[in-house]
């Protein structure tokens, strides 16, 4: 799966998150911060990760989650690592 495909899949997950800023999501890049730029509260990060695991049928390592930066790019890296 390419980074672009993962990005699109992640955008679908983010589009369904409570109180997401949809305009910001539509123009988001890999550098976009999920909390700062997309307006999502930090307590939703766990839910996003759980839904992302479901979306891509993967399981993330707990240690990788603990060290995760809140950017879209970091989350894509996490998915790609889990897919390998």
């Amino acid at each position, binding site marked *: 799966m390419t980074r672009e495909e993962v990005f699109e899949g992640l955008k679908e997950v983010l589009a369904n998150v409570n109180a997401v800023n949809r305009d910001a999501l539509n123009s988001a890049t890999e550098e976009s911060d999920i909390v700062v730029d997309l307006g999502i509260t930090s307590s939703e990060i766990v839910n996003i990760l759980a839904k992302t695991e479901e979306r891509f049928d993967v399981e993330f390592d*707990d240690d990788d989650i603990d060290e995760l930066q809140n950017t879209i790019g970091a989350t894509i890296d996490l998915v790609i690592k889990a897919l390998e």
Partner: protein
Amino acid sequence: MDRSVAIVGVGSVTPTCSSTAEFAEKVFSNQSLVREWPEAKRYEKQLRSKVAGYIEPKEIGLERKYSDILEDYVEIYVDKTGRLPEKNLSYADLSSVWAMLATKDAIKQAGWNENEVQSNLTGVIIGSGAGGNEVLRPAWKNFFELGRKSRSLTSHNIDRTMVYRDAANVACFIKNRGIVEGLGSACASGLGNIGYAYRMIKHGYQERCIAGGTEGTSIETFVLFDAMQVLSRKFAPEESSRPFDKSRNGFVCSFGCGVVALESLESAKSRGATILAVIDGYHNNSDGTSDMFAPSYGGQLRLAEGLFNECKQASHHDSNIKPEIVKAHGSSTPVGDIVELMSIIKSFGKDDYHISAPKSQCGHMLGAAGAVELVLSVFMLQNNMVSPCLNSYELSNEIEPFQKSVNWDGLKIPPSEFRHLIPEKAIEKEVNSIVCLNYGFGGTNAAMKLSKYLN
């Protein structure tokens, strides 16, 4: 006219301790009460954290008696040493059993006679945080999955699971005729119930109150906090709760119970009671932000200011004297700890007091935390001891990310500058007054000041 309120008795159930005296002894000898929890460990990869502050029923003379007709269902907690009547035990979930045991100890210490206990001027104000308990899951499994009839679930689920079950059970046990209620304010509940009881006496509604918080052992509660990824992990059990430490990564979920016996100071003096402490004041407020979970520096500053204003009315000594101890909420969370440290320093100054962090030893007893920590504060007053902040090995010498934000108008000083306020081991010094702080989800904050009774 507002009245002064005294603490005349205490009781508790705490991780690894068979008595309140043992609890104080362990705290002042710098021991951790946190252990690896077998109940969490059996779920292996499903749970991130495996440590908790817990006490097994058998460690305090209780035994689960399981139902003959419902699998895994605890029909009753048997009291092996006969402290509580069987009738009362039949109504009680674990948290309520603990509340009754702690109440019995507190009343014995208070020295109230039967008339005083059963008076319409004696109240019971006890609450809990999450409300998880071990009877509901097997009950629901039997009804919804196995299709059992409702009567097979027994008639003792409402009494053992309703929101105010702990106050109800204690009231049925001691047979008081005054106010019986429990309030919930998440992790501020323990102090909140005591604060509410204090106000009932202060304003003349009650003469006496049994008050506190209790949080019964519950893997369900643990699981739900683990789901939030807020529990400590990857440290040895005794090093998992590390308030203010640079390496902290979450709190330790714990369970326990704290109860105090409150009485109007006038009544306590007139009958020659031993007065363990006097409550100078209590204040509570809300952060006023839209965030359910994040702490608020401004909210905490207003809390302290409100407490100072309340204490100005204290009549028995100079309430403007700085407390020797600020007993922090200090739950070992990445952001909360240093926000609190900064608000404490802004409110109480940079010197000449110590910060005590009991959660470093007990973990976070949720709805019971504020009450157990108040009981401990009474011991600090009585014994002239400051309980430590265990595991605070390294305080960061850089300011935290939130202190760099444009929205931060608090101190821009790293935590390491305040090492002198945060003792890693218990210390002995004269203690005349203590301020207790507790905060909860939803932005609720509670603060109380205690002083030694000066005759």
